[in-house]
């Protein structure tokens, strides 16, 4: 299984690029840590997205040149970033007022599990010896207008991440709108997972095999 997932499907960059194509011009977007951060590299021609980082910056720009970083200008992943023209700094309560108040158009997050009803688990394995850490994920899924998940379709061990019900502790209930995996783009609908697009060279049956819940085919 592991070998297969390496040889078929989109790369992480292709997943990010595919997702970026679905973001309308002028959107206010929060990108989670990890694969979601790659989305910022693929802004389609003719569009501008305004990036929000929950530690108090709207209008976040790309990473600075190596060595040019300011330890007091960082993103939620604690990496050095820059501020674009038209940016604004604000405090944490105002930042999460933007999130909780529904002002952001899109949150892009990673996932450990996504259930067919849109439940998301992405913060804890629930293991007894794990140090629990949640950050802003629960606020993002509760407040942002749309939640896109970008993730490998299966875990490194080959287990499906798209499941009937999450076994890990939840981040939020019924919060995921769409999933961008290495194999497909899949909507969470009232009827369950529905394939929107397949990666070229990957067929529906292959995706279904690697998914822990029934898949509906793309609508005509």
């Amino acid at each position, binding site marked *: 299984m592991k070998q297969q997932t390496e040889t078929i499907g989109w790369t992480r960059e292709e997943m990010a690029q595919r997702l970026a194509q679905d973001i309308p011009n002028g959107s206010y977007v929060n990108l989670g840590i990890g694969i979601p951060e790659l989305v910022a590299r693929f802004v389609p021609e003719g569009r501008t997205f305004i990036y929000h980082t929950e530690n108090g910056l709207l209008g976040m720009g790309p990473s600075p040149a190596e060595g040019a970083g300011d330890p007091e200008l960082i993103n939620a992943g604690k990496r050095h970033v820059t501020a674009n023209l038209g940016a604004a700094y604000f405090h944490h*309560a105002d930042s999460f007022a933007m*999130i909780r*108040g529904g002002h952001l158009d899109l949150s892009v997050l990673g996932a450990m599990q996504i259930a067919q009803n849109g439940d998301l688990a992405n913060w804890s394995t629930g293991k007894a010896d794990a140090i629990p850490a949640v950050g802003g994920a629960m606020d993002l899924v509760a407040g942002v207008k749309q939640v896109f998940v970008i993730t490998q379709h299966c875990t490194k061990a080959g287990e499906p991440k798209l499941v009937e019900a999450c076994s890990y502790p939840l981040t939020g209930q019924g919060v995921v709108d769409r999933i961008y995996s290495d194999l497909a783009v899949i909507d969470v609908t009232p009827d369950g997972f529905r394939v929107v697009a397949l990666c070229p060279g990957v067929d529906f049956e292959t995706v279904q095999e690697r998914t822990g819940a029934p898949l509906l085919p793309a609508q005509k």
Partner: protein
Amino acid sequence: MRMIDKRVPSAAEAVADIADGSSIMVGGFGEAGSPIELIHALIDQGASDLTIISNNAGSGEVGLAALFKERRVSKVICSFPKTLNSTVFPELYREGFTELELVPQGTLAERIRAGGAGVPAFYTPTAVGTPLAEGKELRVLNGREYLLEFGLRADYTLIKGLIADTHGNVLYNKTARNFAPIMATAADVTIVQAAQVAEPGAIDPETVVTPGIFVDRVVEVAKPAHESELIAAGVCYP
């Protein structure tokens, strides 16, 4: 090529889609911060049966008071509808044309802030044991009584800034700031009139008061009128 540009050419175009029955937050404390040109455009536009959320109910027969006088406002949510030179609202209130929901000023501010921040309700000590507590949930927390108050939102917000940029970032002038930054967060559509509309970068990111995410439309009104000056000049709008 400018890909984000929230400018609208005129106050008339900025308020063109406001429908009958809309709820509208209007910035200002007395005349300071009152977006008179947007209000006058709304009077010209004709929408009626409006619910207005604003600290006061206007003075003279210009701005907010003129909107009342034109019988466009069926309900007002405010803390202090009586002001110097305020004659229009009292008549409509006594006549029963305009309903009043009276809210303590700090509760009004906090309800608006909550509405914009995704907080549906909160507890406050203000107004416990007064007539304004009637009908409200009372709860004892840590040995003190509090009232439950609900977040407040509107269809539109009309506010006045000093400088805005095309992304919708706004700076205000002195005490004209008052309710504007919180009202900007609590409406589906926030419309700003600013004396100057600049390119992104004109406002230092450290000093932005209202970040652009809260603003939908920006219109330049280079020399905004002041209520007291219009009243002194005997103006009655329209």
